[in-house]
């Protein structure tokens, strides 16, 4: 099953994603120049959004320190000394290439449940002796170096820890439970062992209308310069535009579950996080000076078993504001009409469910039956349609 999300989002003047010349990215579609936000820019905005906004409960995020805290806590529960535990965990994590400083974080969004923490703690307990020895050796090494006045060197602890501990940690940190790797694939890595094929597909956002280049001519003046001296100290132009984008993304649930080591509950949470991020995340290009924080005017989710296809062709003929409606309303009308045409031509046998949430309810015709009141209901409906199993209730409290 696939979950598709289609979005119409109109932005105030902005330059969210620019090319090497500093101009907003563009492309040609239907014979006219359109504004574009690249797929990689949208994906990055979503990944960042995952980390900064806790979209879901028990989201561990990406701080190795926090992961270490959780394991230490579990070790303490097993009766180990807290300081020793911390040293042991530190050694183990160093051994898999995660340096452990104040600021250190893993790259990935980790959802770690009780089982994973338990496994990591168990691995530490089983090899307690070796890891403690490793920790002591590392400390002595550092002390000796300090005494000699040399700079503290981060010893590559990879050889220092037993293979089983290393593998257990790697299994957890290396993508088995990393929701964002499962979705977007392995792109950036500090532990690059496995290749992960992305479960989601994010299209480049294309404006529904034609767009021309606009320039903001600016000057910068030195406040401290003498009053008598006329002229600016710096002049230039910044390019920008304002566009109503059609955005498309989909998630292949089978691939997502496979990427997350067959953890259906995690896949369900990840799907929810993905849908939320798709709606809420906005790229940050030039936002300090433009502040174009605009939410979508239409969000549509489609659950289907086959036949996925972008609705970009609704906008082959560029949309224009006219007496019938403004740019956003006319874009929604075009999308609505095109959905009907596509269904007539290709049938809708593959579609399992459609939900539309929009600010312009009165414009919908083909989508009338798919209307939901708000985005929250849309997300819940799409997640429910995915039929991924929610967590079974635990027997003990």
């Amino acid at each position: 099953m696939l979950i598709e999300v289609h979005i119409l989002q109109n932005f105030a003047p902005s330059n969210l994603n620019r090319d090497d010349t500093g101009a907003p990215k563009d492309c040609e579609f239907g014979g006219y120049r359109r504004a574009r936000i690249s797929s990689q820019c949208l994906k990055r905005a979503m990944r960042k959004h995952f980390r900064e906004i806790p979209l879901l409960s028990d989201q561990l995020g990406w701080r190795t320190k926090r992961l270490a805290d959780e394991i230490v806590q579990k070790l303490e529960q097993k009766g180990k000394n807290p300081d020793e535990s911390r040293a042991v965990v530190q050694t183990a994590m160093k051994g898999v290439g995660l340096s452990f400083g104040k600021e250190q974080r893993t790259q990935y969004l980790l959802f770690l449940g009780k089982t994973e923490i338990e496994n990591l703690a168990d691995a530490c307990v089983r090899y307690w002796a070796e890891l403690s020895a490793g920790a002591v050796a590392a400390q002595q090494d550092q002390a000796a170096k300090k005494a000699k006045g040399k700079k503290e060197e981060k010893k590559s602890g990879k050889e220092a820890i037993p293979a089983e501990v290393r593998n257990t940690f790697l299994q957890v940190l290396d993508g088995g439970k990393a929701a964002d790797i499962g979705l977007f694939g392995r792109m950036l890595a500090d532990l690059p062992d496995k290749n992960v094929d992305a479960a989601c597909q994010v299209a480049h956002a294309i404006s529904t209308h034609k767009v021309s280049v606009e320039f903001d001519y600016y000057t910068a003046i030195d406040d401290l310069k003498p009053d008598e001296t006329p002229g600016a100290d710096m002049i230039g132009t910044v390019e920008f535009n304002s566009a109503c984008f059609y955005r498309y993304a989909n998630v292949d649930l089978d691939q997502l579950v496979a990427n997350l080591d067959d953890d259906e509950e995690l896949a369900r949470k990840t799907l929810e996080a993905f849908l939320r991020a798709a709606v809420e995340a906005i790229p940050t290009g030039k936002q300090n000076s433009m502040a174009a924080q605009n939410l979508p005017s239409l969000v549509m989710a489609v659950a289907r078993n086959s036949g996925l296809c972008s609705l970009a062709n609704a906008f082959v003929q560029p949309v224009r504001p006219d007496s019938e409606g403004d740019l956003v309303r006319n874009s929604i009308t075009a999308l609505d009409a095109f959905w009907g045409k596509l269904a007539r031509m290709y049938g809708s046998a593959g579609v399992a469910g459609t939900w539309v949430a929009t600010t312009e309810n009165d414009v919908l015709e083909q989508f009338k039956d798919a209307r939901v009141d708000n985005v929250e209901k849309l997300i819940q409906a799409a997640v429910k349609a995915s039929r991924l199993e929610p967590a079974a209730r635990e027997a003990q409290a």
Partner: protein
Amino acid sequence: MRTLLIRLAGPMQAWGTQSRFSIRDTGLEPSKSGVIGLLCAALGKPRDESDPGPWPSLAQLASLRMGVRVDREGSMKADFHTAGGTHRKGEVYGVYRASGGISPDAVPSTRYYLANADFLVGLEAGDSGLLVSLDRALSEPKWQLYLGRKSFVPSVPIRLPDSPPFGPSVREQALEEALRSYPWFLMTGSGDEPPDKLRLVIETDTQAAEVRRDVPVCFATRRFALRMVKTEFIGRNELLVEDVSL
């Protein structure tokens, strides 16, 4: 001879065969390796062939003779792409280097693509067994289909519908005949005009033709073999133009 016809159309497409490192190119029409890769995605056939599974072999797929009719030439554009780079203090967001470390700097690349292109692709085989199973796979693909790069989603379903005028997808015709006789659809209201001539790029075994290195031998190790293609044209008068008001 039988031919399977598929449509590859979308706002952006890229079919590269010659790229090295950070400049990713595209040809002016779909490559055979790209199309076969797309069929493998529909089948759910992995890159690694060590387990043959229920799918046809890559050799079998590569033996299909491919032709492309360019219904609309795309314009070649470049997408400027950066990966990595440190954006905030303390954040390491690096691209992995071949030498083993992480690059602290952003790695820029230029990725060429075809904007607004539309292709009709034909695959010819002696009998229809393989073609029918490929058609079935395309109607219910196992993995997401895309036009050369994963973010280039098709805007028209790749598989043709079952009934005329747009279908059926498997034709009892040889490759050239199938490509020449398939209608060119004028979408009323799109402002498109039927072109003076359409370009055809067809696989051939004449030595004097153009060479393409896009016959997949192994996707896992990225090995490709050569094939020859020739370019022909269909004139406006030979073209069957159908006016489709959806």
